[in-house]
C-alpha cells in the first residue's frame, strides 16, 4: 500500500511563518519620488540629486521639445504624411530622465516609442519618422549616437542589450547599456531570458521598463499580479519602482543603476510607473477599453506641468525662458514638418539593397530582372 490514500489529510500550515516565507508582497509599493505632483522637491534617503537651475531648465526644455515633436508627428499622421505614429505623450519624464542619465559611451536599445530618449542621444527627430512614413525600417546609424534602431517585435531588444553589455564587459570598458521595454513586454520569454543571461554574466545593463499601465487594450493586471519591479529579485538583481512622471527621480534612479553597472555590480531593473496619455498608436481607439476619468487622474500628475510649477515656484525660470522655448518648439515643429514632407520615396530598386552585406546571387538576379521589368514600361510613357 502507498500513501496515496492519505492525500485528503491536510498538512498543518502555520500561517505566520508561511506568510513571511511564501506570500508575495502585494501592498502598493512605494515609488521613488523627488518631485511631487505639485512640483515640490521631496527628499528620498537613497536617491538624491542636486541640479542647478540651468540643468533643471535643460530637462524642462527636453520634455517640452519632445512633447511638441510628438504632437507634430501625430498631426502629420492625421494629415496622411505618416502611416502610423506611436505617441509618447505622458512618458516624457521617464524618457528624458533616464536618457539624460546616460553617458555618450553608453548604449541604448529602445522600443518603438523612445522618441524622448532619441532626443537625448542627439538623434535628429526627423530620422525617427522614416519608418512611420514608410520610407525605411529605421533611418539612422545606431553607432553614431549609440542609439540602436527601434525594435518592433516586443521584448527582442532586451537580449540584444544583454549581449551588447556582455561585450562591454569583455572589453573591460566601463560603459553601461540600457534596454527599454514596456509593461506588456514583461511577459515575453525573451525578457526573462535577458534577465537570466544578464544576471549569470553580471552584464552591465539597466532594464528600464516604462509601465504605462497599458499594452494596447490590456491593463497591467493581464501581465502580472505583483508590481513589475519585483520581477528582478527572483533573478538575483535589484528592482526599483520610480515615479515615471518625475523627471528628477527617473534621472537619479537611472544614474544609480548605470553606476552600479559601471562598477561591475550587474543588471538592475527600473520600473518607471507612468501612464500612456494617448492612444497606443494612431491606429488605436482607446475609448473601446478605458475610461476618460483614468486619463484625467493622470493629467494631474503631468510630468511637464510638474517641473514647470517647480521651476516657477523656485524662480528658476522666467517668462522669457518659457516664451523662448515656445518659439523653439514652433521652429522644431516647422522643421520636422518640412523635412517629412520633403522626404522622398525610396527608389523601388532599394528593395534589393542591404539584404546581405556580402551579396547574394539570387538577390542580384531578382534585382536585374525587376529593373528590366520596370524598364519595359518606360517606352509606354508610364
Amino acid at each position, binding site marked *: 500500500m502507498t500513501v496515496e490514500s492519505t492525500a485528503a489529510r491536510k498538512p498543518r500550515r502555520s500561517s505566520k511563518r508561511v506568510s513571511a516565507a511564501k506570500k508575495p508582497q502585494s501592498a502598493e509599493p512605494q515609488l521613488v519620488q523627488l518631485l511631487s505632483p505639485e512640483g515640490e522637491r521631496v527628499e528620498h534617503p537613497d536617491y538624491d540629486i542636486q541640479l542647478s537651475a540651468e540643468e533643471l531648465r535643460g530637462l524642462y526644455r527636453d520634455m517640452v521639445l519632445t512633447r511638441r515633436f510628438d504632437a507634430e508627428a501625430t498631426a502629420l499622421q492625421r494629415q496622411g504624411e505618416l*502611416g*502610423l505614429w506611436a505617441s509618447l505623450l505622458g512618458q516624457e519624464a521617464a524618457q528624458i530622465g533616464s536618457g539624460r542619465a546616460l553617458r555618450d559611451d553608453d548604449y541604448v536599445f529602445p522600443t518603438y516609442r523612445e522618441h524622448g530618449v532619441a532626443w537625448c542621444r542627439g538623434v535628429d527627430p526627423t530620422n525617427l519618422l522614416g519608418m512611420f512614413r514608410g520610407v525605411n*525600417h529605421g533611418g539612422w546609424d545606431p553607432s553614431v549616437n549609440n542609439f540602436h534602431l527601434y525594435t518592433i517585435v516586443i521584448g527582442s531588444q532586451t537580449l540584444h542589450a544583454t549581449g551588447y553589455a556582455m561585450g562591454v564587459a569583455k572589453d573591460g570598458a566601463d560603459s553601461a547599456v540600457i534596454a527599454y521595454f514596456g509593461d506588456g513586454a514583461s511577459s515575453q520569454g525573451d525578457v526573462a531570458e535577458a534577465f537570466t543571461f544578464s544576471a549569470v554574466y553580471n552584464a552591465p545593463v539597466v532594464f528600464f521598463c516604462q509601465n504605462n499601465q497599458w499594452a494596447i487594450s490590456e491593463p497591467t493586471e493581464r*501581465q502580472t499580479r505583483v508590481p513589475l519591479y519585483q520581477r528582478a529579485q527572483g533573478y538575483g538583481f535589484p528592482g526599483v519602482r520610480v515615479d515615471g512622471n518625475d523627471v528628477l527621480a527617473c534621472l537619479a534612479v537611472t544614474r544609480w543603476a548605470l553606476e552600479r553597472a559601471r562598477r561591475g555590480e550587474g543588471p538592475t531593473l527600473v520600473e518607471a510607473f507612468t501612464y500612456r496619455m494617448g492612444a497606443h498608436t494612431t491606429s488605436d481607439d482607446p475609448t473601446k*477599453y478605458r475610461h476618460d476619468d483614468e486619463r484625467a487622474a493622470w493629467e494631474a500628475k503631468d510630468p511637464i506641468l510638474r517641473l514647470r510649477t517647480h521651476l516657477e515656484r523656485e524662480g528658476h525660470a522666467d517668462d522669457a525662458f518659457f516664451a523662448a522655448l515656445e518659439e523653439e518648439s514652433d521652429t522644431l515643429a516647422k522643421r520636422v514638418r518640412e523635412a517629412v514632407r520633403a522626404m522622398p520615396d525610396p527608389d523601388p530598386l*532599394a528593395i534589393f539593397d542591404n539584404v546581405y552585406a556580402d551579396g547574394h546571387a539570387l538577390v542580384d538576379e*531578382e534585382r536585374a530582372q525587376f529593373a528590366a521589368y520596370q524598364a519595359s514600361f518606360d517606352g509606354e510613357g508610364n
Partner: protein
Amino acid sequence: MAAQQLPLAKALNESLRQALETDPKVLIMGEDVGKLGGVFRITDGLQKDFGEDRVIDTPLAESGIIGTAIGLALRGYRPVAEIQFDGFVFPAYDQIVTQLAKMHARSLGKVKLPVVVRIPYGGGIGAVEHHSESPEALFAHVAGLKVVSPSNASDAYWMLQQAIQSDDPVIFFEPKRRYWDKGEVDTEAIPGPLHSARVVRTGSDLTLAAYGPMVKVCTQAAATAAEEGRFIEVLDLRSLSPIDFDAVQASVEKTGRLVLVHEAPVFYGSGAEIAARITERCFYHLEAPVLRVGGFHAPYPPARLEEEYLPGLDRVLDAVDRSLGY
C-alpha cells in the same frame, strides 16, 4: 438571414460567434481579443456576449498563447488563438512546430489537438515592419499542421467553421488586406471540403493559381486577359497543406500552362512545391515551364515600396505573357 453581404472580417466574426454558440468548448484567446475585439475587430463584441472565461485576453507572449492553448486542448477545449500579425507568430514557432504539430503522432493518436491559430497575413495595408509578411510556407513544410487561407467572405465563414471542427491543428491565414471586401455569406449553405481548391473562373489557355489575397488580383488579371482574347482559368487553392494537386493537375491538363501567384517570397515558397509536383504530374501536358510570381528574396519593404514589391496586375499579366510566349 441566411444569405447576406458581409465584409470578410465580419464573416470571420460571425463564424467565431457561431462556433462559440454551438460548442461550449470553443474558446477565443489572444492579445487584445477581449474588450478591444482585436486590432482588426475580428473578435468584436464576443467577450461582451460570451464572457471573459471564453474570450480571453492573454499576456503579451505568443509562445504562452500557443502553449496554453495546447494545454487547454488537452483538457478538452477547442481554442482559437489569434496571433496579432504575421510577423509576431515566430515567438510561438517552437510550440507550433515541436508540440502542436507533433503531439498527435507522438501519442500514437491518443492525443488530439483541435487548436486553430488565426493569423492575419500579407501586405498592402501600409504598415510598419513585421505587419505585412506571408510566412505560410514555414508552416506548410511542417507535418502535423494543416494550413489554409480563405480569399473571400463566404470561405472565411465556412473554412473557419471547418477549421474549428477539425481535430487537427489548423493554421488559418487571413488575408488582412481583404478584410473589408464584401461577399455573400450563406450561413445555411452546405460547404465543400476544407482542403479542396475551387475554380473561380474557367478558361482554356492558361491556369492561374493563387490563394488568399492574390485570388482577387488573379481574377482581375483573367478579366483583363479575356479582353485580349486569352481565356485564363483561375484556381483558388484555399489550402496549402494539404494542397489539392488533383484540381491543379486537372486544370493544367486542360490548359497546358500554369502560373502560380503568391505574396510570399518565391524562393522556397509554396509556388515551388506546386511547380515541382505539377511538373512531375503533367510533364507531357505542359507547354511552358510553370512560372511563379511572388515576393522577392528580401525583407518585406517599407510601406512606400510595397506596391512595387507586391505582385500586382501587371506582374501577373507579364508572367501570363511569358508563359504564353513558350
